[in-house]
């Protein structure tokens, strides 16, 4: 891991530095975690000091926040949003539900493992994680970016078939546009 950072060219280093310090967040407010975002962004925890600010649309966003359990119906939209984001893009998943189902482990319409459908950079565990944890998660993501191994978009592209297979297993009536980047 450390080696990758050292092998960066100057240009890459600058790029990664800027990416690290400017994270536009697409907060996909699923589940209970959405309520933690305002706390993180506002006065008490002030994520903006780290260069984190909200983005209104996936086109402008760098980070996709999945803030809790995902119903299959929601998953479709999440995939759509994720695919609309521009590379480089990052995904942060909140809470137990995104890791392995959490308390919805036996629900008939809630996915258990987010990783199977879209690549995730950072998991923040907890049910729900508190803003401190969220900021810690962001910090981790920043480190990862600075190291140059936050390759979420590339991973998705390379393993698109696997992801698609998983997605289509859940989303039966597949009516999604093709992923073209």
């Amino acid at each position, binding site marked *: 891991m450390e080696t990758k950072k050292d092998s960066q060219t100057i240009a890459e280093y600058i790029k990664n530095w800027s990416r690290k310090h400017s994270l536009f967040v697409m907060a996909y407010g699923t589940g209970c975690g959405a309520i933690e975002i305002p706390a993180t962004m506002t006065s008490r925890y002030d994520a903006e000091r780290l260069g984190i600010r909200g983005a209104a649309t996936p086109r402008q966003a760098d980070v996709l926040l999945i803030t809790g359990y995902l119903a*299959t*119906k929601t998953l*479709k939209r999440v995939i759509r949003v994720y695919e609309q984001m521009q590379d480089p893009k990052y995904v942060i998943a909140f809470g137990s539900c995104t*890791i*392995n*189902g959490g308390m919805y*482990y*036996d*629900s*008939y*319409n*809630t*996915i*258990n*493992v987010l990783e199977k459908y879209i690549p995730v950079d950072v998991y923040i565990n907890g049910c729900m994680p508190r803003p401190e944890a969220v900021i810690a998660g962001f910090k981790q993501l920043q480190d990862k970016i600075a190291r140059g191994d936050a390759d979420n978009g590339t991973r998705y592209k390379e393993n698109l078939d696997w992801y698609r297979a998983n997605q289509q*297993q*859940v*989303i*039966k*009536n597949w009516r999604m546009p093709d992923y073209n980047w």
Partner: protein
Amino acid sequence: MLEQEQALLSQVTSAFPVKGKVMRNRRVEVWAESTTVSSILMYVKNQMGYQHLNHITCIDRIEDTKFQLVYTVFSHQTKMTLFVKTFIDRNAPVMDNIDHIWDQANTYERELREMYGIQFPGLVGAQEFILEDWDEMPPMRRDFKTEEYSEKTFSSLPGRENTQDVRETISTRSGEEIPDFAKKYSRD
């Protein structure tokens, strides 16, 4: 004591061949045949001022092969709630559509249709209401094996121990006993 409630009950029972009882303060329930439910509702809405349909809910009495439907109506004048309860056959679940009495009944009925598979003849609305692309048994029926389905469809990562009772872990960590009354809710 509860004169109002009694009066209500007697009014309904006198008008329809139903039996019922006063549950408690401002709560009255009646049991009706499924065919008379819509007329009872019409009657209480138009004649007795029960203008508000709170809810329609369904209970899966799998043991009796019946669905129990509960219509909750409320009067703004007397502040009383009337529960109209009925059973329908679980194997051929058909119930009268009442969205001509209350428009909002449409929403509940669509949900019941989707979650329990109860048919309401004449119900207008998209087939898929909450679920998307659902082709299994209606999921709220008790014979639907949700855990199996979940395991099959959204396979978990290894390491999850489904049977683990979190309370035991807590009690061992904190040294607190699980009270007796709570033990009977234990998973096994």
